[in-house]
Every structure is written in C-alpha cells, then in structure tokens.
C-alpha cells in the first residue's frame, strides 16, 4: 500500500467534499472525480477504487441514510469501470 498516495487521496476528497457541500450544492463533484480517476488511470491500478470508497464514505457521512451505502456503490462502480476497460477497451489512453 502506498501510504503517501493514500493520504493525499483522503486529503483531496476531504477538500472536494468541503467544496461540494458549500459552494456547489447540486453538482456531483465527488462522483465526477471518482469517474474521471477510474476512467483515466491504468485499469490495473487500485487508486480509483480507494478514491470511490473514500468519496462514497464522505458522502454517506453528509447524508441521512445508512453509512456505507454510497461507499459500497461507488466502489462497485469503480470495479465495474475497471472490468469494462480491461475487457473491452484497448487504446493508447489505457496502456496495459
């Protein structure tokens, strides 16, 4: 596990959540960030899945539902994107 990378990731999502909940009320900044990370990183990288987990968890804290629902859904979405990219997409953007 790359701890400095993990720390930066948590810090980045902390700031993204602060921005989403104060400046951009209805813009899904965290979801879009999670999607972008997962689309543009190498399919074998695990950072996107962790980003999805943290992003979802932070959103769970700031919603009234069950804690973990969004973390779980975001992580599943990240894994799904990675499987799709790895199976069906071949191109210079996603070198294997």
């Amino acid at each position, binding site marked *: *596990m790359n701890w400095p990378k993990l720390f930066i990731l948590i810090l980045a999502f*902390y*700031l993204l*959540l*602060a*921005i989403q*909940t*104060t*400046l951009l*009320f*209805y813009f899904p900044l965290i979801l879009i960030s999670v999607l972008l990370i997962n689309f543009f990183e190498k*399919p*074998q990288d*695990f950072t996107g*899945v962790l980003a999805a*987990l943290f992003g979802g*968890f*932070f*959103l*769970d*804290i*700031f*919603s*009234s*539902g*069950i*804690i*973990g629902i969004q*973390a*779980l859904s975001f*992580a599943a979405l990240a894994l799904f994107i*990675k*499987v799709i990219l*790895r199976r069906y997409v071949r191109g210079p953007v996603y070198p294997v």
Partner: protein
Amino acid sequence: MKFYFSKSKILVLLIAILLILSLNLFSKETRSFFYSIFSPVQKTFWDAGDGISDFFCGVFSRESLKKENEELRLENQKLLAEKASLSKVMEENETLRRALEIGPAEEFQLGFASVVSKLADEAILIDKGTEDGLSENMPVITAEKVLVGKIDKVYGEFSRVALISRKESSFDVEILGKSIKGLIRGRGRSEIFLDLVSKDKELKKGDLVISSSMGGIYPEGLLVGIIKEVINSDAQFFQQAEVSPFLDLRELKNVFIILNF
C-alpha cells in the same frame, strides 16, 4: 469470473467496507466526529461562497441583473409606501393594546446558530446541538423571519436542519391578506409548490405565502415565498401554484432557532 486485482487488495477492500458498515452501530457519534473535523474548512468555504457566487452571477447574467434591478427598484417604492401605512397601523395597534391592557405582542424565544454546510437530501448543518439546548422539530428561521425548515437530527455540537424544499416536507400555509389556505410541498433542489387550494379561491401571481399554525409544525406568520405561477387544471380537484421561496441558500449565513412557540 476472472479477478483483476490481487487477493490482498480485494481483502483490504472488503475489510474497509465491513468497517465502514459497522460504523452504523455508532452513527450519531461517527457523524458528529466527522462534522467537527470538516466544519472548520466548510465554514470558511461557506463564508467565501457568497463572494464567489456573486462574481459568477455578475459575469454570466448581466442583462437579467439589469432587468431584475429595475423590477426591484419599483418593488422598493411600493414597499416604502406600504411601510408608511403599516407604521401608522402599528402605532394604532400599540395604543389599543395599552388601552386594553393586553401588553406587547408575544415574540419567540430564539437561539442563534451559524450554517456550516449543505447536506445531501435538502438539509443544512448548523453549529449548535444538544449542548445548546436544541432538540428535534424546532423550527428554524432567518433574521428576516423567512422559514428555513426544522431540525430533524441533533448531535452534540451540531444539528441537521431539514429544509422546507425537501421532498418529504409539507406544511400548512395561507396567503397573506386573503382567507386562502393551502399546503406547501417540497420538490427538492430548493423548489416548493402550493397544493390543495380550493378552486373557488382566487390565487394570483405575486401573492405572498406565509406559514400557518394549523398543522402545529411551524408558528404562523413566517415568510415562505411568493407565487410565481398558478396552475389551474381541469384534471385536478384543487388549484396548485409554483412558489418561489424566499429562502436563498447562498445568502444564508446565520439562522435562528425558535425554542418555543
């Protein structure tokens, strides 16, 4: 199905999810803890937000601002005239109260709080909680007596306020100066609409909607919004209306909690 990640990575992910789910056993404490971690940064951003949104508003909507400014100037003149006649009525009211020994009109007992952030599901977070004597279902208003919503969850140092625009929100209202009663329903994304208004009543664009004490949720006379468009369809048993709420989240910095009413 083929796994694309090592077993250890999948194991870490599963343990993390289990840990996160187990936090539901202490959801109140967990949320309170994270709110206190996030609140300093969120408070700074929230306070800065007004300036930033004003800047973008100015850049992108110059023409509409000009028109709005003109309309506001006209409305201001109208309000000044109304204010003058109202002050006369107030003076008369005060004299009559003294003569009848009724005493001054009752005001609410209020608590003060600052807004920390917007939460999901049409709610905001304020920086006062059980430690400050707040409890669930207390109405929240602005300094101008604009209805914000009611407290739906209280933590130690924070409270969650469900906005009137929340989809599950509905409460009794009346039209100022007319004997028209109705129900305001939330629509999400800061939108509300008026429902259950009898068809024989005359609703007009520009009518002021204020809260009514009938449902017992909010005290009467709090400002809710202004009618934008009346919808009178033959398929409906009641009249409906689009209401433009007075509550502007971007302008909201501080709120008052009605402790008793």
